[in-house]
């Protein structure tokens, strides 16, 4: 089943095209990685998919529900109630975590399920404890974000997103703010989610990770999808830009 469909997405910032006619779809249970040089529009694509940016053209739908479309170059969104429903389909993990500093780890994870989804407190707490255990953070329940390392913060942010039971989880360069040691622990957690068949779209600069975790890889360049396919196909393709891009990585 198609979870997310984006058709002919266009996005400009101050007249400069960042996304030029991008179309993609994500199936249930699929892990899709988006790679590409900085400024190629990867993060913008994710921000459009999660409604943090308004699109200038095209349409987006989740599970067949129209989430955004354009009329005369202006973005149109469904009514509030429908939008709320659609927003509950997806979650997003930010590059810089964006945890709430005044909430404990537990409250960061449980507050939205309790006060937005109106679920029972006991049930939410039980689920949150399971999530924390999965993240290897059972002892951090009462800690505040400033007491956590970057890797721990990101794992809490992942638990926070998962607590709302989204159908699809987006990651916007989840390890770019972390040093290599901490990157490993976060990637390990994301990998464990892939094993659970959680649908994920991951924007990343971790090439080895993208290659091993993904069902499909998209290589973006200058606002368009330059290459798309299985990891093996994309990473071994005789595509000039892709080779250049990978070459720079291998030099580092």
């Amino acid at each position: 089943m198609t979870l997310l469909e984006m058709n002919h997405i266009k996005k400009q910032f101050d007249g400069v095209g960042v996304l030029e006619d991008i179309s993609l779809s994500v199936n249930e249970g699929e892990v899709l990685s988006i790679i590409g040089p900085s400024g190629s529009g990867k993060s913008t694509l994710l921000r459009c998919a999660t409604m943090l940016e308004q699109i200038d053209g095209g349409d987006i739908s989740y599970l067949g529900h129209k989430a955004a479309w354009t009329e005369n170059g202006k973005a149109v969104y469904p009514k509030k109630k429908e939008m709320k429903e659609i927003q509950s389909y997806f979650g997003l993990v930010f590059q810089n975590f964006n945890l709430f500093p005044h909430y404990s780890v537990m409250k960061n994870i449980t507050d939205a399920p309790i006060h937005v989804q109106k679920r029972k407190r006991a049930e939410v707490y039980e689920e949150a404890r399971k999530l924390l255990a999965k993240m290897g953070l059972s002892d951090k329940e009462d800690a505040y974000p400033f007491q956590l390392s970057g890797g721990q913060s990101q794992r809490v942010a992942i638990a926070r997103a998962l607590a709302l039971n989204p159908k699809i989880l987006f990651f916007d360069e989840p390890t770019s703010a972390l040093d290599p040691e901490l990157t490993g622990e976060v990637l390990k957690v994301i990998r464990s989610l892939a094993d659970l068949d959680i649908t994920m779209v991951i924007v990343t600069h971790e090439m080895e990770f993208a290659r091993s975790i993904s069902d499909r890889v998209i290589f973006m360049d200058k606002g368009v999808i330059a290459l798309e396919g299985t990891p093996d196909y994309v990473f071994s393709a005789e595509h000039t830009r892709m080779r250049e891009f990978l070459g720079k990585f291998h030099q580092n």
Partner: protein
Amino acid sequence: MKAQGAMALGEIFQQLLPGMGRSVSIFLCTLVLSMPLGLVIAFGRMSKCKPVNWIFKGYISIMRGTPLMLQLMVVYFGPFFIFGIKITDSYRLYAVLIAFALNYAAYFAEIYRGGIESMAHGQYEAARLLGYNRAQTFVKIILPQVIKRILPSVTNEVITLVKDTSLSFAIAYLEMFTMAKALAASQRSVLPFIAAAIFYYVFNLLVAVVMEGVEKKLSYYR
């Protein structure tokens, strides 16, 4: 001689007691009125609707750009000079409270605005992704962090307010300073002024201690 002086000071305090009560009342009422009003003005000032934005910008500009003492007089005498309404004695207190609340709200508004605009955009985005509506986002996520951030500036303003209550003498409202001035004149003594100084100083010491306590309470996170 020294003992006599000390006694006199004690007596002066006793005489000034009702005035002190009134000073404290002005202080508390002004805070209760101006702090929420300041939030409304801050929202108006940050409004994306241009006319609304201008109105509140102008309001803040006037309130900050003219003396509080002058504002006090305009509020007190204005109704008579402009509309010919007879000024009653009880209006004195209302005039004080109206003028102080309007003036301090403008300052609080700018402090709030600074705090709100300094919040990282990511906090709003995270809240939105988690499904919080606008009211929830502001009350649960943004406001608590803003309060912590603006506390030192608020403390400054509150301490200034303690001292500014003395401006009420301009319309002869019988708070502590007005009484001390009268007493100094009738007694031909500087002691009432010393008593007044002690009062304000101790009052502000108390304010500082309380605000420090609040800051400490909010220091559980960074």
